[in-house]
């Protein structure tokens, strides 16, 4: 990566970007501007360390788009595991708002073998006063009785639980012994940490302490056993990614956690290689498994044909000639399909620009897919990334590209107004702000109710969606002729 050419974009320079940042900050209160200044930079692709500050507290009042630790635990890590009952432990709201709103699709029979439901202890005043441990114990029993084929239960704490001094860990320990299946505590109260990111980490800790190394696969281990880490099956992403890995001869033994199965996750210690897509939310798990069982891990990127090919070849290098050969066959098989997609859409999108603001992976991982379509990224940033994410981002973007961490609505509006991208890719809270202004937009957390976007099949849909967003005739109606 170090020796790739440094990208540039016509009209984008470090000086101009720094000017834009300064201009934006000058309208902010001094203290806030000082804090925010460190989170906004012009990209320098060749520096080893991106000069941005990240993973810091939200500046109060600026209208951050961030969520909380619970959101990171329930929405991201635990929720997608399909054969578990996930209990939102605390008041009713958190579970309701996160029910079915992340699009982590799952197989199974709902209520029988899969549980895309909202389970909650619906805390009342008396639970705050007297504590909710007893209630938790009862409800875990009730859940197990009503959903007997569940393979485990997770308990995800909401804010009050940690504040009133409940001990969910004692309850889950007792209930795990009683029920004879996984009963996992996750102390992911929303006030912990600075963003969703700590929720991922707390969940990783729970998996480390309570899940991994506790099961074994039914089949004997093979040389091509891998696990897919950090693919949450948004809009069916896993179902577009897993078949490619199988086509190149690998045996995907478990998926973390999209359409995931808890016992397979628990047996992942037996695989030969961990393949990680969302580095932010799961890299710690790879490191744990590496340390514990010596399992190597590899980051890959399945957005767009360029990155898919690059990633497949890198994966092949971890195996033998059989896999290497199959990888080349797969690449050759799909290239004509991908060329057809590019021939159709690239002429319609060439030279367009886009700005991104997403979670912990896509602001860099999707860059290649846009570029495959001829779209340049003029601004990118993360809700909850850390330094290592930004270090991985810098080389992917052009020199001088605006990078923003935990951007506020105020800042993003200014940036978009100035850079005038043809598309903004971000979340539901940002979507209509920009669409009102007549700027095409795609939700890049949820794939805007479309997807999958991963893999070869996903790219076909991605290309179609980006084209329809930018080229929809509806945008020409925005300005009234009178």
């Amino acid at each position, binding site marked *: 990566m170090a020796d790739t050419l440094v990208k540039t974009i016509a009209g984008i320079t470090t000086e101009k970007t720094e000017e834009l940042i300064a201009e934006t900050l000058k*309208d*902010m209160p001094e203290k*806030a501007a000082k804090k925010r200044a460190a989170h906004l930079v012009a990209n320098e692709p060749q520096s080893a360390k991106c000069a941005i500050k990240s993973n810091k507290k939200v*500046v*109060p*009042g*600026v*209208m*951050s*788009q961030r*969520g*909380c630790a*619970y959101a990171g635990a329930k929405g991201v890590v635990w929720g997608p595991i399909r054969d578990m009952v996930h*209990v939102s432990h*605390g*008041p*009713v*709201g958190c579970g*309701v708002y*996160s*029910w079915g*709103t992340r699009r982590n699709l799952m197989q199974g029979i*709902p*209520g029988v073998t899969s549980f895309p*439901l909202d*389970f909650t202890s619906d805390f*009342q*005043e008396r639970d*705050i006063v007297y504590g909710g441990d007893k209630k938790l114990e*009862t409800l875990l029993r009730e*859940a197990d009785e*009503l959903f*007997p*084929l569940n*393979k485990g239960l997770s308990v995800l704490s909401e*804010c*009050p639980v940690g*504040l009133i001094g409940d001990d969910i860990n004692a309850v889950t320990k007792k209930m795990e012994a009683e029920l004879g299946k996984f009963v996992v505590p996750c102390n992911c109260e*929303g*006030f912990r*940490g*600075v963003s969703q990111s700590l929720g991922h980490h707390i969940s990783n800790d729970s998996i480390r302490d309570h899940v991994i190394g*506790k*099961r074994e696969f*039914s089949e004997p281990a093979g040389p091509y056993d891998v696990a897919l880490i950090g693919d949450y099956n948004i809009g069916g992403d896993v179902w577009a990614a897993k078949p490619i890995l199988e086509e190149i001869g690998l045996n995907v033994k478990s998926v973390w956690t999209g359409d995931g199965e808890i*016992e*397979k996750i628990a*047996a992942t*210690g*037996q695989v030969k290689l961990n393949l990680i897509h969302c580095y932010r939310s799961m890299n710690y798990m790879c490191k744990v498994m590496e340390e*514990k069982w010596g399992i190597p891990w590899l980051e890959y990127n399945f957005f767009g044909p360029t990155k898919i090919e690059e990633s497949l070849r890198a994966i092949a290098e971890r195996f033998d000639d059989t896999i290497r050969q199959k990888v080349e066959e797969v690449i050759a098989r799909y290239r004509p399909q991908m060329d057809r997609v590019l021939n159709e859409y690239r002429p319609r999108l060439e030279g367009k620009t886009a700005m991104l603001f997403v979670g912990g992976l896509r602001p860099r991982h999707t860059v290649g897919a846009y570029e495959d379509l001829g779209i340049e990224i003029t601004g990118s940033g993360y809700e909850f990334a850390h330094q290592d994410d930004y270090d991985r981002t810098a080389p992917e973007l052009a020199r001088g590209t605006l990078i923003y961490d935990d951007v506020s609505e*105020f800042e993003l509006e200014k940036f978009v107004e100035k850079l005038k991208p043809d598309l903004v890719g971000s*979340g*539901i*809270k940002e979507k209509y*702000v*920009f669409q*009102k202004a*007549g700027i095409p937009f795609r939700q890049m957390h949820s794939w805007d109710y479309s997807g999958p976007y991963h893999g070869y099949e996903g790219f076909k849909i991605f290309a179609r969606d980006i084209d329809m967003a930018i080229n929809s005739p509806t945008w020409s109606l925005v*300005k009234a002729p009178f």
Partner: protein
Amino acid sequence: MSTTTALKPMTEHSAAEIERVKDWINSEDYKEKNFAREALVINPAHACQPLGAQLVAHGFAGSLPFVHGSQGCASYFRSTFSRHFREPAAATSDAMTEDGAVFGGQNNLFEGLENAYALYRPSIMPIFTTCMPEVIGDDLTAFTRNAKQKGHIPEDLPTPYANTPSFNGTHIHGYDAMLKAILEYLADGKKTDGNDNGKLYLIPGFDGNTANLREYKRYLQMMGVPCTLLADISEVFDSPCDGTYRLYAGGTPLDEAADAVNARATISLMKYCTPNTLKWLEGNSVGTSIDLPLPMGIRNTDAFLMKVSELFDMPIPAELKAERGRAVDAMTDAHQYLHGKKFAVAGDPDYLLGIVTFLLEMGAIPYHILCSRSTKKFRKEMEALLATSPLYGALGTVYINKDLWHMRSLCMTDPVDAIIGDTHCKWVARDAKIPLFRVGFPIIDRVNLHRTPVIGYQGAINLLTMMVNKFLDTVDETCEDQWFEMMR
């Protein structure tokens, strides 16, 4: 590989076992166990207080809702509104974290108010709380006063606040608390001695249907009754796409809100959303403050118009009478398609009462009526409404503090023809293989339903059209060839 502990094998469920459970969850036996639940809530049809507070807060001109507590809550509320309305929902929070839990949230509030005011220049910042400051006991009276004394925000910036703990009540109670707080704040010292301002003040309640609000305003305009809609989200959450993003796209003007205490009359159309607000108005305003049923169906709409006519001594215009006639025409023409059809209905108390009224007018049967958190008072009122109709209403059963998983058991063991409720009901509808008519909040899987009124005469026509045509579509799509015919 670790060798310290023996690894357990995978748990396998046989196909027969899966089939058994699949059938079992539809059974009477399961229903009994399901209804015996004491602690676990599954698929509730209600949300938490601050969501309702935020909806109210959005409904005032230049208002920036301010969440005192965890930032994640603010993001959840904003996302929920944006998904439902497909509109921006600007709100901010002071992002309390662990240190806030230890030292209280005053510093966060100071910084949050200062930044929010500087960046977004609101005319009012209604403040409401999440669980966290409620558990630790933050004193918002002192905090907001201190914020002004220390110059973080101007002294004259309205900062009404409401305590909205999520472990108490639901979104409709947050609605009440915030509305009362805003009126109390704005109207402080504004009450005149006896002379009312000649206006009607209307409280729509927690309604995710912007077209309903527009419809109220249209009626009152037609009647020539000067009116202010309180917490008016109709423009805020249904703003034009014309190339300009408006951070503050409408809402009740603050001076009009401040004058609420001098209204000739105030009517709440969702009394379960406004008990404390109405009570406060009764004691602190010049005019009369009353509640009326949500005007769904013909009779409730009649009652609303007649009451307004009586209060303001203005006749109901002929055009409205003609509208009524057209709605009744639609209902008589299409009665055969809904008569005797059984419905399961889930939602908030006021909406439920409105929907049931409409169903009874059509000769349909409101069969399973479920409110996932409410009071015995509501149950009594609903039962009284059902009792007014021995033929259609008497068959219905009211369930309070039961959730949509209970609803599933009801619909699987004692089937109905359709469900009326918000998007969350779609799981039951799918399992029961019946249509879901989306009425309520949130609707996050269909477009424009918030732009289609369900109140008033036009609302009755709209509901009727949605339901009847869906039933007829189903007949056309599923009947055998010999029964497929041109006319329906």
